[in-house]
């Protein structure tokens, strides 16, 4: 399975023992990936042109050419949506809305709303459902929402969505990142299959559907009949 392809993780993998990777990932990969500190990491290897290091550029880590295998798979994508930051934040913060545009998410229901705990039902292999229980770990109104899975979850996962003003009154740049530690067995194979061909595919499509829904009030389909949808 194609895994975390970020220069941040590359850095993490080389500098830390394996067991610390997942904590680091959360800190570096998700916490800082969208932040400025992520762009300041230097790759400490001699490359083709004989340069011993190249300063990191301003691109997000997941677009790096160097890919690395680690414990977590990450999908992420940015899309510009022509709506104010606060509206988008509020729509997303109401987790129940997510199943409206995430293809594989059947429902998201609160367990303990006050603690930001939710139960996600994901369409699983062969008609089974996969249950994920998460809690909100960061909540900055109008800026970002991050969540991580609880012990009771069938999949170890972390996610974060951030909202920034787009330049020139173009609305909001929405960046979503989802990382998960693929479990073994049948479930693991299913997840691998789902994300293998193109790790960013699912996240990318879901974000596009989010954009369609808020910009047009509906999600485009070429189905000619409701039953074909």
């Amino acid at each position: 399975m194609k895994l975390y392809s970020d220069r941040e993780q590359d850095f993490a993998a080389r500098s830390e023992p394996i067991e610390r990777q997942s904590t680091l990932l959360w800190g570096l990969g998700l916490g800082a990936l969208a932040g400025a500190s992520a762009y300041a990491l230097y790759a400490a290897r001699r490359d083709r042109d004989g340069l011993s290091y190249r300063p990191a550029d301003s691109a997000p880590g997941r677009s790096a050419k160097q890919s690395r295998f680690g414990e977590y798979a990450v999908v992420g994508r940015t899309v510009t949506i022509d709506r104010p930051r606060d509206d988008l934040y509020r729509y997303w913060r109401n987790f129940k809305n997510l199943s409206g545009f995430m293809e594989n998410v059947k429902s998201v229901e609160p367990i303990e709303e006050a603690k930001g705990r939710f139960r996600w039902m994901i369409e699983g292999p062969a008609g089974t459902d996969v249950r994920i229980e998460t809690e909100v770990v960061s909540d900055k109104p109008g800026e970002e929402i991050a969540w991580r899975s609880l012990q009771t979850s069938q999949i170890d996962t972390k996610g974060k969505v951030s909202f920034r003003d787009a330049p020139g009154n173009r609305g909001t740049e929405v960046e979503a990142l989802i990382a998960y530690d693929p479990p073994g067995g049948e479930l693991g194979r299913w997840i691998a299959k789902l994300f293998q061909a193109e790790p960013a595919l699912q996240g990318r499509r879901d974000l596009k559907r989010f954009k369609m829904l808020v910009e047009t009030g509906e999600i485009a389909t070429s189905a000619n009949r409701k039953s074909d949808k």
Partner: protein
Amino acid sequence: MRALTWQGKHDVRVETVPDPEIVNPRDAIIEVTSTAICGSDLHLYDGVIPGVLSGDILGHEFMGRVVEAGPKSTLKKDQRVVVPFTISCGGCFHCKKQQFSACDNSNPAEKQDLTEMQFGHAVGGLFGYSHLAGGYPGGQAEYVRVPFSDVGPIVIPDGFDDDDVLFLSDILPTGWMAAENADIEEGDTVAVWGCGPVGLFAVQSALKMGAAQVIAIDHYPNRLRLARQMGAKVIDYTQTHVLEALMEMSGGHGPDAVIDAVGMESHGFAPDTMMDNVKQAVGIGADGGHVLREAILACRKGGRVSVPGVYGGFLDKFPLGAMMEKGLQIRTGQTHVQRYTKELLHRIAEGEIDTRFMISHRLPLEQAADGYHNFRFNQNDWTKVVLKPNMQPAAG
């Protein structure tokens, strides 16, 4: 309902398929009264555009009567409408800039991956034009589901026949945008390759926009005759050296603007065409580019290249040096139809624009396959085919 379906290269059939329904709130269902076959459909018919599946309903030039409108549609039952071939949401960045064919939200998310990989960005949705453009069932059918029906369709007032207004769906705006993209100035010489419907409308539009002379190039006598009738001078490329003639006919200056209204399947026995044909036949995604190459060479220094002709892949031997060294400008794209429908309807009403002259054949929908065959293989006489679902087949 009955609908024209694609089955394979040069194999299209009218079949019975399920009727469409309102699926999304902004949808409307149109009962088709007239629908045309386009040069763009021939690229599908010839199998040179990928992503068409057996059973897909073709057709993107259509008009009809509203039979059902979704809760968020602004249309009303029984209104007569012409529907643009470009499906556009009206609210995204591109639609707001009037770049309707670049709409971000009309191509379903799960269909966007392919063109995103191939072109760097996903294209907008089009009716009946492969799954790359959304896989929307097309208009060569009795009924069509029209998404975003509050944005695209233009309501036609009483007093117009279908034949007057049908081409607002595509080729009339396409010819108009082709001329607009040529940035025509007073006194300009404009050369137009291809005297199919798009080229003929481009000729008419270029003259309206002030070109001093328009030179149209093709090899079908009847199509050249129509171009002449529209006011163009003509070149038959089987009789004449095109580049030399264009220089001579423009005082040694070269045309100020050139329009490629042929696209990826240009004909002729030029060596580059034959090479392109071989590559196209073995399916390595090479477009035929003879006309575009010739147009770039013909264009005067600092001139403009307008490309309404459709391309879908890669072009070999693109004369980039000529483009750069002569400082040419190039503009192209699927037409932003919604940008032009109102103004062009007004011009039709004023009698400024003639739309009927190019219709050579009207057939019942049931005979659509004949229409395709003849529009493809008897191009001289079959200049434009309009299909009518309600027309009775001719006796005998």
